[in-house]
């Protein structure tokens, strides 16, 4: 990523913290999947569990936010080190990707939680 050394250091910290959040989120998510697939999986069953549930809404919103922070920072590293991208190109591409994760993720949470 670009910007000052302080920004780069801060981004590194953001990625570490978001990774910790994701670590917990992924474990909870896996537990929910294992619980949910017992005795078949249907859209109606999922919606029955999630619709109107503030707990599910809050949990998956946090999950989406953490992913939208974590993934673009990591992708910027990959673009710089493996593709040799530098400067504005990296910033724009990764910001757009982060925005995509944020919008599609929150849209999905909205879709299954709000009745």
């Amino acid at each position, binding site marked *: 990523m670009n910007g000052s050394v302080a920004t780069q250091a801060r981004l590194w910290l953001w990625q570490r913290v978001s990774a910790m959040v994701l670590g917990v989120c992924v474990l909870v998510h896996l537990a929910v999947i294992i619980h949910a697939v017992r005795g078949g999986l249907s859209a109606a069953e999922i919606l029955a569990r999630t619709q109107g549930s503030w707990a599910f809404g809050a949990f998956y919103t946090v999950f989406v936010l953490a992913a939208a922070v974590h993934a673009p920072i990591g992708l910027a590293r990959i673009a*710089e080190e493996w593709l040799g991208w530098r400067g504005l190109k990296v910033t724009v591409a990764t910001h757009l990707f982060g925005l995509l994760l944020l919008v599609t993720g929150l849209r999905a949470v909205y879709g299954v939680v709000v009745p």
Partner: protein
Amino acid sequence: MTSNLKVKVWRGREEGDFATYEVPRLESQTVLDVVTYIQRRVDPSLSYRYACRVGMCGSCAMTVNGVARWTCRTHVSKVAKDGRLEIAPLSNLPVVKDLVTDMSEFFDKWARALGRFKGGTSRKDDFARVKPESLERRAVDAGIECIGCGACYASCDVVSWRPEYLGPAALNRAWTLVNDVRDTQRQERLGAVAGDAGCHACHTLATCTERCPKQLAPTAGIAGLKRLLARTKLEAEA
């Protein structure tokens, strides 16, 4: 111990090729002995660098069968596969000729990491007292033993992907100095080693730690710098 070794040695600069030499296999032979034999008995035009022969100076590091090593402290018996050796210059550094690399960038990066001690006292002041058991002193017990051979730098993938990266040796040096309570440049140094050209670029691959001929752990020092920086407020300058 009468058979011959087949030794491939890099000849040329960035462009070049391996030449193959036959070298008599001797007992307790080091890779440096092999290179010296070639230069003295077979081809005097071969260029390589060494000084102390006993693992103190750090000048004889080369790539032996794909791995950066001190040639003076590497026995042939440890690395030769079926009597074959491949000796190349260190990676991640420009080749001057044959096995000699240009170390300027490597040491310039030590300077960029503010790798020089700067104290705040004069000869008129009393000696500083650093307690051997203090946390700061113990944190750098190993790190201060670095002799700057460049084996870690040549082994670091991040250096090859990101040429501006300061590298394990310079960051290890910075780590020893930020823990030196007598030094007066701690804040500036932390600024110099932060960010994408500094410690935050390290992916903790730990190849430097695996390859260090002195079994030092630059990875641990770099992680220490990251931890310190997470607690330090940097000036938001470009």
